[in-house]
Structure formats: C-alpha cells, structure tokens
C-alpha cells in the first residue's frame, strides 16, 4: 500500500489542477506568443513607484500593464474556486514569520535566478531548457532540505 502513503489525497486534484495551470499559460501563449511567468510581476510593478534603473528597463515597463492583468486573473480564478468549491475563505496555519521571511527569500531568489516555479518550473521545463532544469533541481533540493530541517527543529506549522 505504498501508493496510499505517498499520495494520501489521491492524485486527481493535483493532476487536474496542473493541467489547468498549464492550460492558462498555453492559452496566453497561443494567442499572444507571450510566455507568462508569475514572478516578473514583482519587479515590473515596482517600476510604477520606484525609479531604480533595474525596474525601469524596457522589458519591464513594456509588460507591466498586462502583468497586473495576469495577476488579477490569478486572484480571480482562485476566487472562483473558493466560492464554488471551497465554500468560502480558507486561511493558513503557517506562522507569519515563516511567510514573511520565506517571501523575502523567494523575492530575492526568483529575480536573481531568472524565474520561479511557473517561469522555470512549468515554462522552462516545458521548453526543455537546461538552465531551467538546473534551477528547478537546485530549488527543489534546497527546499526539501530546508522544510525538513525546520520540521526537525520542531517548528509546526
């Protein structure tokens, strides 16, 4: 019964959700040729309020409007799920300092590493990009080590 232990919640919800995630990226790609990652939004949106040169590169300023639309779509799409399937709001038990500190590291890491779970993990791997495969293998290994270390230290959740 090892399958039950590895997948205590089955695989349907994960696979179906993954197909939707890929489907959203594929829809935008087929219509516009744009490969939409989620993390460039952080820097491109900062260009509205900061004149730091890095945020005001043409690549960011030229895409900042649709990146806000994309992010709004992500929030709305998840909202549809929450209203129709989830039966209202759901909130995490993970402690605030983990979310904040983890968020800061994610913000630095995704920009330094040229992408995140969607950019490298879904689009880059889907492109068989060696750069992305190296990045994904790196962040998954480090994340496994970090999560297990934090758990071993008795932090929960």
């Amino acid at each position: 019964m090892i399958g039950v232990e590895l997948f205590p919640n089955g695989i349907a919800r994960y696979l179906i959700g993954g197909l939707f995630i890929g489907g959203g990226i594929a829809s935008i790609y087929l219509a516009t040729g744009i490969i939409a990652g989620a993390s460039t939004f952080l820097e491109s949106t900062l260009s509205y309020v900061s004149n730091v040169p890095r945020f005001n590169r043409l690549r960011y300023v030229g895409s900042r409007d649709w990146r806000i639309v994309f992010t709004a779509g992500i929030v709305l799409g998840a909202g549809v799920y929450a209203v129709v399937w989830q039966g209202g709001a759901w909130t995490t038990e993970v402690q605030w300092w983990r979310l904040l500190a983890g968020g800061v590291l994610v913000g630095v890491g995704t920009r330094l590493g040229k992408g995140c779970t969607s950019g490298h993990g879904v689009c880059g791997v889907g492109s068989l990009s060696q750069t992305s495969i190296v990045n994904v293998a790196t962040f998954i290994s480090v994340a496994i080590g970090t999560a297990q270390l934090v758990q071993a230290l008795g932090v929960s959740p």
Partner: protein
Amino acid sequence: MTDRRPGFHLVILVGGLIFGFGLAYSHMARPEVVLDFLQFDDLGLLFVMGGAAAVTGVVFTVATGVLDSAPLTGVEYVRRVKSFDRNVVVGGVVFGTGWGLSGICPGAAYASVGIGNWPILWAVAGMFIGAYAQGRLRSRITGSSAGPTAAD
C-alpha cells in the same frame, strides 16, 4: 510589445483566471500542501508541476513547429530558454530556502489571496521587499560601473 490587437488584455485575464483556478484546485495555493510535499508526507505536487509542464511542453512544441506567429501580437513563437550563469544556481538556492521555509512561491501566493488566505499577505509583502532589495542592490552595482544613472 509594439503590436497589440483587440482582445489582448482579455486573453491575458482569462489565461490568468485558468492558471489561478488550477493553483487553487490543485491546493498548491495552500502553503501546508507545499510543505507536506517537501516533507514527503504527500507527493501529489509532482503531478501539479508535471501536468502543467506536460501541457506547456506539447503546446510549445506544436506552436514553434507548425504555427507562424501569434494572432494577437504578430510575434513569432519561441521557447523559454534563458542563458545560464552562476546566478541561476545562487538564485535557485535562495529561492529554495524561501520556498522550503514558507511553502509559498509567487503564482501560488497570488492564488492564495484569491482563496481568502489573508495571512499570505505577509508573504506577498516579503516578496516585494525581496525583489526591491535585490533590484536596488544590483542597480547600484551595475550603475556604478555604467555612469551616473544609478540615481534612485
């Protein structure tokens, strides 16, 4: 983005909606589910990333192989291939530390807002702080060698 035809923003919005719905449906928008995966309690997340990458893999292959240009922009279809340098690994290590600590990545964090998970705003704020800090630091480093353009 020189050329954008009518419907451009609508397609982006609908694509985002499908993407965000998938993140919520898969439960990846919940940090606990990501942490369960990283702690080997539930490996279902493999199917989220694998399923999504399979779809993009097929669509990228077909589009770059047989289609000419995207209807709403006229741009040529390309794959996502970025240059490799040390930052790709260093960034992966920093990202992985943050992902393992919080169970949150950018797309999943936005979707988490949508499922009503208000404490996730800590993570969203953190991501903006992190992105701002690295951008400011890197602009200063490159700016100092490129001339007086580093003024903030």
